């Protein structure tokens, strides 16, 4: 058994790529080894800004010798054929064995593949790995053609066993493998040799390199929170930033500094965004006031002055950045307090999409739509319209120009500053939501109206110009918009006709509807149907994530009013719950049996049995019980359905299971008496009618 250590030492690897690259290195090398027969006990990969490292433990010294038997020609085959086989297998006649088979005597060759030394396999696999490494972006340098994320300087590749370490020889475009590496660029730049992974990590640590990114992240977080705590403050959590910062340093040193008093009046989000985006600083908050008062920066080294110079430099840079932010904030507030007309005007010059007009036109459409949607969602129409008109104003502000990720949020601040109602200000912030599947949906009525208006306008607009998402391409995030509509409606329990609002959206984009008059000009209706089916597809994904089967959704989509998403979801949830019960699951079988038999007989007889069964023709108790059960169920289901109380309707339906089962058990449908037979088929028809009023159960699988 041997251990393997590989280090690929390069110029600084982008932080965001390191983790993935370490995993890729591990996977590619170990997969390649295993494929060549070189198994191992364990492997782990690490990264720093300048290195990718892989350690493999308990690796075989060589791949095992393998033998395989290859079937050749028949023993009595012509010499030529046998010679050909021998040449192909690289064997002589003596290597062949003759064996009796069902097809006669056949020659077999025994081919022995000798195992290969681990070093040979590793060298081969590593070279291939380096040459085909899946960097998101790679580059050439100097005169070479080799590609790596940044210039690759050295390859450390050794195997180590109890008797010492051996270099695995490798030459990749002139980069020759060895047993040396370097420490920290500034603190310990001298090269040194290593003999094993333990020796490597120990020597790296004394050369000011912490190899494990998780260890660096933990150390940073520990020091940051400790320093903040000592000052009665808390660090604002930011896992993404922590991972990034851990990828920017080999020897993390946490330094905490103060934000100049001048800037503490800026909105905390502005401070935080500016510090994170530009400086990779953590924000440090005063829990008593909620204000961000300090920052944490992570240096890559210790210094004789304990980081004083570094901290002072960082502080100075921050002040310059925040001076900019403050400049934007103050300029923006001036415009906001004057009513934002300047911004609204300039939206006329900003293209939303070249076929869908300017942002100002978008805002007009949103305003009309929001006004129309308002009553249904419980918002004041005037307010909803106003909110929509102001929702995009901040796109013209200087702050959003500088920090696009603050759009919406700045809108809220500026609209508040302009003296508008808080609900209108919130709508500006919330109308983009939900941005991700776990993002909160707006719940305030005005925000809901504006958010729906924005998304409906977007979907209908891109549908009207035929820019629908295809495959993995969804450049305008239309899937997200559709999911947003679904979630807003469902999570706010809003039942409404999507057809009606989408039609208004389409009309605002100039799509014409002649639905009452002219069958030939149905573009609008086609758009609507197509968009609805797109939304249904998103709904399927949404519900599937909640554990609701696709056939259940299909059964509900097949029902009327399927453009009421909230209704649809309620129905699907109730049906899903019902099907989880024993009665529910068996009822489906009963329903299907009834439906199948009925359909077959209807086809045979060329009639539809929907006349209404009469209990007076019932011959058995089971038949009479089913009549009674159907009457009871119907009496419960109808009002429940009218009240959209699907749970009640469906549990009433599920009670039919026993009587239906008993009925089929006891009764022969195809009675010799035609009257009785017709009556029984009409009874089956009642089952179908009642069950089908709940959902299209024919769609249920199984």
């Amino acid at each position: 058994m041997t251990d393997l250590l590989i280090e690929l030492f390069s110029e600084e690897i982008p932080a965001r790529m390191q983790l993935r690259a370490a995993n890729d290195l591990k996977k590619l090398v170990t997969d390649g080894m295993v494929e060549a027969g070189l198994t191992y006990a364990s492997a782990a990969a690490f990264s720093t800004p300048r290195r990718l490292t892989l350690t493999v433990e308990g690796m075989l010294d060589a791949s095992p010798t393998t033998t395989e038997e290859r079937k050749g020609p028949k023993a009595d085959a012509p010499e030529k054929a046998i010679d050909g086989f021998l040449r192909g297998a690289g064997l002589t006649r003596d290597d062949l064995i003759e064996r009796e088979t069902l097809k006669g005597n056949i020659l077999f060759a025994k081919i022995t593949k000798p195992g290969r030394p681990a070093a040979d396999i590793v060298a081969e696999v590593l070279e291939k790995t380096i040459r085909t490494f899946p960097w998101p972006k790679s580059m050439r340098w100097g005169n070479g053609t080799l590609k790596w994320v940044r210039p690759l300087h050295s390859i450390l590749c050794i195997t180590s066993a109890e008797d010492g370490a051996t270099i695995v020889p490798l030459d990749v475009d002139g980069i020759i493998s060895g047993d040396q590496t370097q420490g920290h660029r500034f603190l310990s730049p001298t090269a040194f040799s290593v003999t094993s992974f333990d020796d490597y990590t120990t020597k790296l640590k004394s050369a000011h390199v912490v190899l494990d990114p998780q260890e660096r992240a933990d150390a940073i977080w520990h020091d940051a929170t400790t320093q903040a705590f000592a000052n009665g403050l808390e660090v604002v959590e930011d896992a993404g930033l922590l991972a990034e910062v851990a990828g920017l340093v080999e020897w993390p040193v946490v330094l905490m500094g103060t934000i100049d008093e001048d800037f503490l009046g800026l909105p905390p989000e502005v401070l935080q965004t500016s510090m994170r985006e530009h400086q990779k600083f953590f924000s440090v908050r005063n829990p008593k006031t909620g204000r961000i008062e300090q920052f944490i920066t992570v240096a890559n080294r210790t210094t004789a002055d304990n980081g004083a110079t570094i901290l002072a430099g960082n502080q100075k840079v921050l002040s310059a950045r925040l001076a900019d932010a403050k400049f934007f904030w103050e300029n923006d507030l001036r415009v906001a307090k004057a009513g934002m007309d300047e911004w609204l005007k300039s939206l006329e010059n900003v293209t939303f999409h070249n076929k869908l007009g300017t942002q100002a036109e978008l805002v007009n459409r949103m305003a009309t739509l929001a006004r129309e949607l308002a009553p249904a969602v419980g918002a004041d129409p005037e307010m909803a319209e106003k909110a929509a008109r102001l929702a995009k104003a901040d796109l013209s502000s200087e702050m959003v120009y500088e920090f696009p990720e603050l759009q919406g949020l700045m809108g809220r601040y500026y609209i508040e500053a302009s003296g508008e109602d808080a609900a209108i200000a919130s709508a500006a912030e919330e109308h983009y939501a939900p941005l991700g599947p776990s993002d909160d949906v707006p719940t305030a009525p005005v925000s809901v109206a504006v958010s729906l208006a924005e998304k409906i306008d977007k979907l209908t607009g891109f549908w009207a110009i035929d820019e629908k998402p295809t495959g993995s391409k969804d450049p305008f995030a239309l899937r997200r918009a559709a999911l947003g509509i679904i979630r807003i409606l469902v999570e706010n329990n809003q039942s409404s006709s999507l057809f009606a609002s989408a039609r208004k959206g389409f009309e605002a984009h100039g799509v014409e509807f002649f639905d009452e008059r002219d069958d030939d000009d149905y573009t609008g209706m086609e758009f609507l149907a197509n968009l609805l089916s797109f939304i249904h597809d998103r709904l399927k994904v949404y519900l599937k994530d909640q554990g609701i089967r696709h056939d259940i959704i299909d059964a509900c989509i097949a029902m009327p009013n399927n453009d009421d998403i909230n209704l649809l979801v309620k129905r699907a949830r109730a049906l899903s719950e019902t099907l989880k019960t024993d009665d529910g699951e068996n009822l489906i079988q009963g329903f299907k049996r009834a439906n199948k038999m009925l359909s077959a007989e209807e086809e045979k007889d060329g009639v539809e049995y929907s006349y209404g069964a009469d209990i007076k023709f019932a011959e058995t108790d089971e038949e009479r019980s089913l009549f009674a059960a159907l009457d009871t169920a119907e009496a419960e289901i109808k009002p429940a359905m009218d009240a959209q109380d699907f749970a009640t309707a469906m549990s009433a339906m599920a009670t039919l299971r026993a009587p239906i089962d008993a009925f089929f058990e006891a009764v022969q449908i195809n009675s010799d008496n035609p009257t009785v037979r017709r009556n029984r088929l009409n009874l089956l028809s009642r089952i179908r009618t009642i069950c089908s009023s709940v959902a299209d159960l024919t769609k249920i699988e199984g």
Partner: protein
Amino acid sequence: MNSTTPRSFQEIILRLQAYWASKGCAILQPYDMEVGAGTFHPATTLRSLGSNPWAAAYVQPSRRPTDGRYGENPNRLQHYYQYQVLIKPSPPELQALYLGSLEAIGVDMDLHDIRFVEDDWESPTLGAWGLGWEVWCDGMEVSQFTYFQQVGGHDCTPVSGELTYGLERLAMYILECDHVMDMPFNDPDATIPLKYGDIFKQTEEEYARWNFDVANTDVLLRHFVEAEAECEAILSHAFDDPKTGKRIIMVHPAYDQAIKASHIFNLLDARGVISVTERQAYIGRVRTLSKQCADAFVQTRAGGYIEAAE
């Protein structure tokens, strides 16, 4: 090597010149046209193309009209200086050479935190991209460090290493100035000591006013179209000069027009008369010019073209 701290803006420039000269670079002079960055100097854009080795360093006055702040912002200027180094092929020790230049201008490597932070470079108007970093000193970006991969739509083989120093910001840091206008330009002990503001405060005000509010956009739009047409017209001439009988491809004169178009576009942008959609179209037009110049340059001797033996 001079390990003392420099005392003026110009001393930093002089030290960089001396340092890169000592490393074998040709010290060129600024290009005599308005450009947005040192990269536009033909010593970078054009010379990064083709197979001929190259090593040059120079100061380039650069103009970014939208960055004007009437000289009030501590470090934002519409006219500033870049220091540019281009070495082809990029030497393996380029990072070390770069760090040596920081030491040469007085950055104490034992006290500061120097970091190479991912920053991929792309110039849509030059049809160029490369990978590299912005170099941070104590959290401040002091340089751009790029390995050119493509310029003017052509793959760079060999690859050039490009270093760009934002001189004012770097100097302010080293000289510990909080406001660029307070920075000593020449030796503070000189008989006539001049601060950066003595030289540039007034010009920043003048240009900011002109850039933002006064520049005649009709004239600029016309100049843009003219420069574009002239660039294409120049390149449409046959390679062989009928008068001398020599192969003379007029790449540099054509490229001057491309630079001109690019700068006019920047001015129009600062005047706020270019909408978002138009913006892309203008950038595309400048890129087309850059690409045509690159196409032509690789047909020249300097661009690695080898004339067939007579």
